[in-house]
């Protein structure tokens, strides 16, 4: 494996040089539980799925965001997934809509590293899941006859 000769060059930022010093010193080993969650991440792989990437959401005109409800939009394969994220009591509520509505037999699966909740989509493509733990989540849309579409992993922390 060859390395570029300018590895420690002036273009490197402070954090990266600090990370390099720490990594080379071996004084800050990865905690076991961090390694365990990294290993467990593999259990959430979804072979053949299309990843829906974040899209810009037009800001609602004339309304100043209160910071509570957040609208996230993801898109892939001609499908848009809109998610309203709200939190109460330290838990996260998701209300989602898949556009265009995929029709009968479609499901939305809300996945977190520790649990998965499955919902049948309404005829208008809507679903809701309440009381999720804060942290990383991904929504997978399953449609009969199509590969699944999964929103890229996103972190939600309660306000």
């Amino acid at each position, binding site marked *: 494996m060859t390395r570029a000769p300018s590895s420690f060059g002036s*273009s490197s930022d*402070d954090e990266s040089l600090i990370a390099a010093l720490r990594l*080379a010193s071996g004084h*800050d080993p990865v905690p076991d539980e961090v*390694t365990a969650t990294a290993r467990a991440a593999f259990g959430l792989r979804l072979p053949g799925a299309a990843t829906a990437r974040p899209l810009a959401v037009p800001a609602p005109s004339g309304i100043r965001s209160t910071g509570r409800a*957040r609208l996230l939009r993801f898109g892939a394969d001609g499908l848009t997934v809109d998610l309203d994220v709200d939190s109460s009591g330290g838990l996260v509520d998701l209300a989602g809509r898949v556009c265009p509505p995929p029709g009968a037999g479609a499901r939305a699966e809300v996945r977190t590293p520790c649990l998965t909740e499955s919902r049948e989509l309404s005829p208008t493509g809507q679903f809701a899941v309440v009381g999720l733990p804060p942290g990383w989540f991904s929504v997978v849309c399953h449609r009969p006859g199509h590969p699944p579409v999964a929103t890229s992993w996103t972190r939600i922390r309660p306000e």
Partner: protein
Amino acid sequence: MVDQHTIEAVLAGDQDAWDVVVKHFGPLVWSVVRAHGLSAADASDVVQGTWLRLVESLPGIRDPERISSWLCTTARREAALLLRRTRGEQLTAEPVEPADPVGAGHSADPVLAVLTADEGRRLWRAVESMDEPCRSLFRLMAAAPDAGVHQLAGRLGMPTGSYGPTRRRCLDRLRSLLVPQEAAS
């Protein structure tokens, strides 16, 4: 060692191969995130997300040579996002990401270089050749990753307000020590 066979095995669903990837790059990801001054809990959160994103993105990366820079870029971006949030900046939507952080010219990244033991030793040899307070500052910074600025400054016998500027000067000095050797190579 993570090579093409490892990646193919991961893509075929082999958990053992994935564990090899985690073992090889885990310390790199952890160091990058921790260097942003995140607490252990926040760092764990960012690291978890970085691996989840690798699971999702690996089919598009495949090249073992690109995984380290991809991990660095992703971990750094997530750490910076979380830092901005903990500093109280209101973020309404987090997942704005570049289309593909891979191959964006990260050959100049020191943390990638020290994945090889030789480069790690060279880095610390340079530190050991430095005058005070830089030598002690770096030793302490590495040995006490959870120490706050106040504590570090106290141990170094300097006012808290001097720690940041001193660290910056020392980092600049360290970089200048490392560059001439490279110019000759």
